[in-house]
């Protein structure tokens, strides 16, 4: 037996209600076709989804937690970027 591991894949499932594919977990598979079949068997047993995406984990690039301060904190004091910052005039209906 070869001890080589199959590559890891990240699995995204779109549920009946949702429009977007959500990350649900990961699995091992030899190629994309097998990854989709495995995802069907592992992650859609309880009617979770109507569409599956898989992507090899090595192709996912993540931000560095050490960058959190530089990346996200500057947005904290820019509350004017949120729609709630603005007063809606009374004359505007159906907002």
């Amino acid at each position, binding site marked *: 037996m070869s001890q080589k591991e199959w590559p890891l894949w990240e699995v995204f499932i779109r549920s009946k209600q949702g429009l977007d594919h959500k990350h649900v977990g990961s699995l*091992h*598979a030899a190629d994309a076709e*097998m990854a989709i*079949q*495995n995802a069907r*068997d592992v992650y859609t*047993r309880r009617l979770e989804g109507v569409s599956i995406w898989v992507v090899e984990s090595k192709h996912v690039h993540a931000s560095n937690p050490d960058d959190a301060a530089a990346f996200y904190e500057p947005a904290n004091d820019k509350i004017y970027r949120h729609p709630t910052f603005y007063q809606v005039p009374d004359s505007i209906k159906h907002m």
Partner: protein
Amino acid sequence: MTDSPMPAQATTAPTPEVQANLFPFVLQLADTSLILAHRLSEWCGHGPILEQDLAMANIALDLLGEARSYYQYAAELEGKGRTEDDLAYLRSAVEYRNPLLVEQPNGDFAGTIVRQFIYDCFHYHLLLQLKSGPDAHLAAIAEKSVKEAAYHIKWSSEWVIRLGDGTEESRRRVEKAINTLWRYAGELTTPSAAEKALQAAGLVPDYAAIQAQVDAHVARVFEEATLPVPQGVFMQKGGKDGRHSEHLGYLLAELQYLQRTYPGLQW
């Protein structure tokens, strides 16, 4: 809403001959699904990887659900008060009607794949026909099951290709499995007495036509797998008439142990 009566059934009431043969045929379908489901369930917790362990458990559950539908129908056809559980748990090996293929031991993963592939090819094409057949009850079961069988045949076909066109070792193993198991393929499309009678009545499809569809699928998959299609194999049979290999008794001993030891036990 008008209160027009239901349209008259196209088929007339079943002849006594059809009635006498439908029970053993449905029982044969039930036994086949149950025994193969049990064999696959033996992999549970022992699969080569988690994902395939689950795939086999899923297929086992599909087949078990199909078996239950057939057993319930068979019990109704027999009309002697036996239940699906009585039929599954309280019959001996000689009363079982499954073809020899499905009772063969799992062997290695390649063995399980080849056994599954041979069965899926027949099962899928049979259900396609039964789905539009004249027996409404069988058609309803086939309608539901053919979606599952479509996945099974995809799964086992892709594994035959992977193993055949894989490593030296996977090819050696899949070739060995084909040499061991191909002799049980012929029984699937060799009609039993009950099947012949029902074919004459139009309730069971023509097996020569199904064999042709199976052959076409096998040829396509084996070509991609770079495997030669076995030729001139002497085909074993007997399972459909209750003449089984020694393996079925052991399988039933495990399958039926609880109900035999504690009759009527529920949990």
